[in-house]
């Protein structure tokens, strides 16, 4: 680990890199933002933005369950709850008795309310308010290790499952006629989103995690013309806003997550602006 640190210090000769928490935060951002960029492409394509938002909100219940059970490390309860919540949402969605938006909204508000009720009993919610905004500077080196593992698993899934997932998203009946198991692919993808959202919620924050998932992909769509460009631009935009956001927040003294979101949103509007100019010309 020390060698990695010293490499970072030589490659990046800036005063802020001296602090270990900045090194950790930078490492975390370099792993987490491309991951968000990749997942975002499919979330936007398959119109799952509301779904990932609901998952983020449900984190409150995950934490509160941990608090009730007296578990110190709430990561585990968060993760288990997140996965169950995602699978439950998929199951209810498939019964098609109520519209998807409504179902997700109901479950999102319910799980948030349950979390708030439990965590605020005795009037000490302030202890948990950090969850809302998150703090990337608090990430430890072990947690970065776990992030790397999640990153690798996601990449493997993406290489083997992306085509099927994409096919199912474009037209389910057509995918079925090609013997693609749509529900299984959708469940796998939901579980991966759940794991990543739940695991990174402490550093990114419930209120803004969805913005980080959606914005890079949404900006990339403004000028990409195929899947390869879509992914490439999304990763670059995500990484760029992550790193500049971290540095700016260090100098200005603001929370890192929201700073990153503002930069990503700024990039979205710039790309949107250029697209509309190009469209008018063409």
């Amino acid at each position, binding site marked *: 680990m020390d060698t990695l640190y010293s490499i970072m210090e030589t490659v990046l000769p800036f005063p802020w890199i001296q602090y270990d928490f900045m090194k950790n935060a930078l490492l975390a951002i370099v792993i987490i933002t491309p991951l968000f960029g990749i997942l975002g*492409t499919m979330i936007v*394509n*398959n*119109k799952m933005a509301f779904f990932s938002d609901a998952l983020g909100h449900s984190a409150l219940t995950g934490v509160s369950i941990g608090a009730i059970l007296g578990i110190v490390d709430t990561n585990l309860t968060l993760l288990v709850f997140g996965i169950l919540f995602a699978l439950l949402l998929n199951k209810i969605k498939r019964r098609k008795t109520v519209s998807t938006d409504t179902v997700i909204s109901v479950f999102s508000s319910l799980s948030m309310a349950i979390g708030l009720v439990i965590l605020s009993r005795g009037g000490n919610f302030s202890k948990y308010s950090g969850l809302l905004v998150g703090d990337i500077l608090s990430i430890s080196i072990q947690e970065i290790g776990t992030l790397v593992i999640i990153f690798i698993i996601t990449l493997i899934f*993406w*290489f*083997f499952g*992306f*085509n*099927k997932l*994409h*096919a199912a*998203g*474009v*037209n*389910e*009946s*057509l*995918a*079925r*006629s*090609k013997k*693609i198991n749509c529900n299984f692919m959708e469940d796998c993808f939901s579980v991966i989103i759940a794991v990543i959202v739940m695991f990174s919620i402490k550093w990114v924050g419930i209120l803004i995690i969805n913005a980080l998932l959606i914005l890079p992909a949404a900006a*990339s*769509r*403004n000028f*990409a*013309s*195929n*899947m*390869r*460009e*879509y*992914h490439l631009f999304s990763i670059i935009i995500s990484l760029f806003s992550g790193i500049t956001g971290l540095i700016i927040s260090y100098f200005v003294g603001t929370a890192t997550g929201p700073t990153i979101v503002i930069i990503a949103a700024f990039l979205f509007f710039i790309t949107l602006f250029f*697209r509309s100019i190009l469209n008018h010309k063409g």
Partner: protein
Amino acid sequence: MKENRIKKRKIITSHIQPDTACGLHCIQIKDISVRDGAQTIIENINLHIHCGKITVIIGKNGAGKSTLIKAILGEIKHEGSIEINDLRNQTLMNLKIGYVPQYINMEKNTPMSVYDLFAGYISNSPIFFRKNPKVYHTIKEQLRVFEAQDLVDKRACDLSGGELQRVLLSIAITPVPNLLLLDEPVSGIDKNGMELFYENIGKLKSNFDLAMIIVSHDFEFVKKYADHVILMNKRIIKEGNPTEVLNSDEFKEIFGERVYPK
């Protein structure tokens, strides 16, 4: 090297080389019923289809045409069975179904090229990573069947309704299925596009070894191309050749006299 390349091309073209219909496969759809709770959506549908034949399903909105297609695709729960027999040696085969959807999920600026759309269904080579030259070649060859090979690098959302239809047709026959299902294929296509589409259906019928079930509202098309017509209203109320069905009392009762005067 050159020889090698020629060899490779031969292999690829030979596997898409159309077989003409042999007429020796028959698909039996037996007693298909779909229920939603206590409500019956379709009931006791029996169809007997031979390869090389076009069966057209007609009926009013809500008659259960799309439901039948979905049941055959195995997308919704249904009673009854679907079998394919080889009449040469009386064995059951594995039924391969092709499907041409009415629409696809796509917005104005969806970054998906025709290659991406196509390869997603027929290949496992990750489309976000690189354009696989082998897959690219196969797709171009398959698109050539419907003269759509030049569309391969275009964005799918920039295509006209007719162009998209031809791409979807190519996807449906890669690999060649035993049974091709088309759900109201002419919606959103202009007059020229429609004629081209019918020509393509005719081409499929004469060049490929497959049976087709088409849901249609276009009675001109029915008269010209259908081998067998099914008039549906939850169950089959009339079937036969186009003249029989289009002039039947049952047809007039549902669509009225003025739609298709004698």
